[in-house]
């Protein structure tokens, strides 16, 4: 199974929450709102990697005036993407258990 790291995991979480309606700007905004701001260039690179690995899928939406008549690419998480996200969350949980407890 493919593992995800860093920005890939954050982008996967945003796409999973977007339920098929996540696109470049909404991912950029969600990351910025969560305090994990990143450039659009880095986000596109991450999206391309995730799509090449089969963790996400995409389709072009309808053109809109707010985008100067251009279409947006809508992303959705695949079954492999969900599995990678679950695996990543599991690793994080297990590692957090190693933290010493404060008295």
């Amino acid at each position, binding site marked *: 199974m493919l593992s995800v790291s860093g920005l890939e995991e954050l982008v996967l979480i945003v796409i999973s929450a977007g339920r098929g309606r996540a*696109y470049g*700007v909404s991912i950029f905004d969600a990351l910025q709102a969560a305090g994990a701001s990143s450039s*659009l260039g880095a986000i*596109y690179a991450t999206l391309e990697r995730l799509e090449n690995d089969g963790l996400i899928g995409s389709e072009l939406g309808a053109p809109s005036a707010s*985008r100067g008549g*251009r279409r*947006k*690419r809508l992303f959705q998480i695949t079954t492999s993407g969900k599995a990678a996200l679950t695996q990543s969350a599991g690793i994080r949980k297990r590692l957090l258990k190693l933290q010493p407890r404060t008295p």
Partner: protein
Amino acid sequence: MGDSMDNNSTPPRFATELLRCCSDPAQLEEVAGDLFEIYQRERLRVGRRRAAANYWVQVASIALRYTLKAARKPRSVFGWQVYPVRVITVALAALVLLRSPDDSLARYLLVLAFLPELVLAVTSVPAALRRVWRARQE
């Protein structure tokens, strides 16, 4: 940024041209649309100047990414698979070897940094020669 003076709602034209030149044509529509949407929103929120500055920063980051990606792709030159980034790296390593003083630690460190690329470049020569040999025989 003064290139957008003719129409305040239009993103900086030169930046858009740069994006068109450097980005993947297959992804241009969605990337340009995303940037346009962010520009319009920022223009109303923080003003045209800051929105234009932000637009330039985003375009530069995207253009840099596509340029680096293109540099990593092999190109066919007279039947040889040439990796532009490898050629640049080997040229830089050669320049460092020739220009730095003999006892310079920087020289060894830089050559060490370039070593993986140098090894890849040297080891790719026999394969390239085999391709040329096969092409000649055909």
